[in-house]
């Protein structure tokens, strides 16, 4: 076997291991080590490399955003910020038909603005919004479907851990990536609310209406939610106007939500321990995949797969747009069985250099930002695509009386909205690039 064949064979081997439930990071790590040994014909390169590679990955300064944002999300959850967000959104939307579901989505967007993870957003908001929707007679499909979709706003709206990982892999400016995600994130939130509005028109039995909240109630709800808004402004605004770097912003955010959680009284020693242990699991899980992906990508570089695949595509005569569509479809398919972070780590090192050799009529930096957001929204869709959609599982596990198939059914309208949005974003890059261009 020549080294390119070894690289190509490694892909089904890797997927095979993943599909029999070998942890994804571990599968990439082992395939990477084995592949490098085969390609170089020696144990020395990979063994010598591992002396410092592990430390280089775990001490990567940009990557230290990840545990800090995770900690921030934990504190936000502990501090009950989800409740005030939901109350504020419900004060304005709750009385409409399907309004409680819309409020759930709006609150997800708000929570996504201070939390970098989709699962945390889905789980947190579901605990608040799900009982409310059930009380007003929302059908199982609508209530779980809207929250599963709403949860994806956790990574669509900055800060976003998936976006951090993309920026590191593609060597792009994290700030610009965050800024570029804002408009598509708002589009998603609005799109989901529209879906709810249409859904309840088509199925009037799926939701009852709630009484209107008066003006004073609305003011009170808004006042309650100001700390969340303050932290978002401090974190994203602070990065934007230049008070601090993204890693520092994550620390500021963690400190801010930590103080709020402390003030709420939930953050005693036990509460703190819970937050730290939960942060530990997510952090270790993410770093282990990042590390495995690093080793696997080193192997692919030794095998020169990225270069060769770019040459192959160039020789194939496919148009750039054709290549883009194929890549996005591949993401959609993989998203049905894999989680978003693993997908990014596995594929960006192969697809990104490929995309950068193609001409979409934009500068390289703009192409990189645009492609990154497209990848983000596409892999995010994987969180709500059956059969494996992590958000679906999380929400469904919080609603034991609703069968999984009903949740599957509930997310379908949202999936349609998402596919329309992806098509719009791909066809009109200016939607994504508008804000980053303003930064120049």
């Amino acid at each position, binding site marked *: 076997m020549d080294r390119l064949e070894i690289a190509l064979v490694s892909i089904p081997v890797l997927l095979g291991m993943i599909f029999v439930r070998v942890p994804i990071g571990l599968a990439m790590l082992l395939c990477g080590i084995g592949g490098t040994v085969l390609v170089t014909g020696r144990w*020395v*390169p990979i063994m*010598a490399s591992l002396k*410092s590679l592990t430390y280089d990955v775990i001490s990567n300064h940009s990557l230290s955003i990840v545990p800090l944002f995770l900690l921030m999300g934990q504190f936000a959850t502990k501090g009950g910020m989800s409740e005030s967000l939901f109350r504020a959104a419900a004060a304005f939307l709750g009385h409409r038909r399907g309004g409680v579901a819309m409020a759930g989505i709006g609150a997800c967007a708000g929570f996504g603005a201070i939390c970098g993870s989709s699962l945390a957003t889905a789980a947190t908001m579901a605990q608040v919004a799900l009982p409310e929707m059930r009380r007003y007679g929302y059908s199982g499909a609508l209530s779980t479907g809207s929250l599963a979709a709403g949860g994806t706003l956790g990574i669509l709206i900055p800060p976003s851990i998936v976006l951090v990982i993309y920026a590191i892999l593609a060597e792009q400016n994290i700030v610009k990536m965050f800024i570029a995600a804002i408009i598509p994130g708002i589009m998603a939130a609005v799109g989901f609310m529209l879906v709810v509005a249409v859904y309840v028109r088509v199925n009037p039995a799926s939701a009852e209406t709630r009484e209107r909240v008066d003006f004073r109630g609305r003011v009170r709800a808004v006042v309650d939610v100001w700390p969340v808004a303050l932290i978002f402004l401090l974190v994203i605004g602070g990065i934007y106007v230049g008070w601090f770097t993204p890693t520092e912003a994550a620390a500021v955010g963690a400190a801010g939500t930590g103080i709020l959680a402390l003030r709420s009284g939930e953050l005693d020693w036990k509460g703190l321990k819970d937050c730290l242990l939960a942060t530990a699991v997510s952090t270790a899980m993410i770093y282990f995949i990042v590390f495995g992906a690093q*080793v696997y990508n080193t192997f692919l570089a030794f095998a020169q797969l990225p270069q060769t695949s770019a040459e192959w595509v160039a020789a194939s005569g496919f148009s750039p747009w054709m290549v883009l569509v194929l890549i996005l479809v591949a993401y959609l398919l993989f998203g049905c069985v894999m989680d978003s972070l693993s997908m990014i780590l596995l594929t960006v090192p192969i697809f990104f250099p490929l995309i950068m050799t193609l001409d979409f009529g934009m500068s390289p930096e703009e192409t990189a930002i645009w492609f990154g957001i497209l990848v983000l929204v596409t892999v995010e869709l994987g969180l709500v695509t059956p059969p494996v959609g992590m958000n679906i599982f999380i929400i469904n596990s919080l609603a034991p009386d609703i069968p999984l198939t009903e949740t599957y059914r509930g997310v379908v309208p949202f999936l349609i909205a998402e596919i329309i949005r992806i098509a719009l974003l791909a066809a009109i890059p200016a939607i994504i690039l508008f804000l980053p261009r303003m930064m120049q």
Partner: protein
Amino acid sequence: QDAVLKIHQFLPAPAPVPKNFIVPWAEKVKEESGGRIDYEFYPSMQLGGAPPALYDQVRDGVADVIWTLPGYTPGRFPGTEAFELPFMPTNAEATSQAAWDYYEKYLQDEFEDVKVIAVHTHGPGLIHAKGDGVESLEDLQGMKLRGPTRMVNKMLESLGATPVGMPVPAVPESLSKGVIDGTVIPWEVTAPLKVAELVDSHTSFSGDRGFYTSFFIFAMNKDTYDALPDDLKKVIDDNSGRETSKWVGRVMDEGDAPGLKIATERGNKMIVLDEAETARWKEAAQPVIDGWIAEMNEKGMDGQAMYDDAKAMIEQYSSN
């Protein structure tokens, strides 16, 4: 084919040194070996790890040839820091030849694990700052500046600036956002990092000595070299040494031109401190030199002789 050299380094392929030295060097070796020494080029740390790992990678055989800065691993190659002391360098071409002579005299032990092909420096570094610019030592007080190596940061501190340590990729962002007020780098790096667009002024100095420089090494794995037949060893040897070091130095000097041009065309303020002011800076930076000499003495080396030699060697190549 007798060997395929895996060449690994941290910059993207279009940067001046990879484009105008590393790849042409590899092509030259390939041609002179009649195609028997081929190469594979891995830019941007494609073979994994962070830039400080490059030296160990070539020592251990992860890569066959690497290009890196010993200064990325402070404390490990103390002798190289003689060239990074304040107001040492002239142009890169002359300083790089001196660096080779200095390597032969003082650094063979430090680099005994690898086959050194070339050592060199970049052109004189200068201060790129936002705002009114640095026209005197007083302007520097409290200014937040990013420095590349241990020695430079010590120098900035001793001059009264606040050194801010951060990875290079963070520099443009931090500059544009005011996290730092400026940075010290040579012109060569200003173009790819778009520094001229982010600052308002550039401060250089009078006299024939530049502000500071950094030391680089281009080296080969020892086993890879030893495994070559004698005629191919000769090809490598012919492409190592002072002339090769001079070549990289020249590429560095030429790389400075576009950066300078961009800044000039933008109408940025060009400040050259006069001789009296430059002398004040040299005096303020003297403790850094004294401190380094003392450090070397503690390590059982003759710090004063190393410093004097480095200076004299640079002088020798600069006066021609």
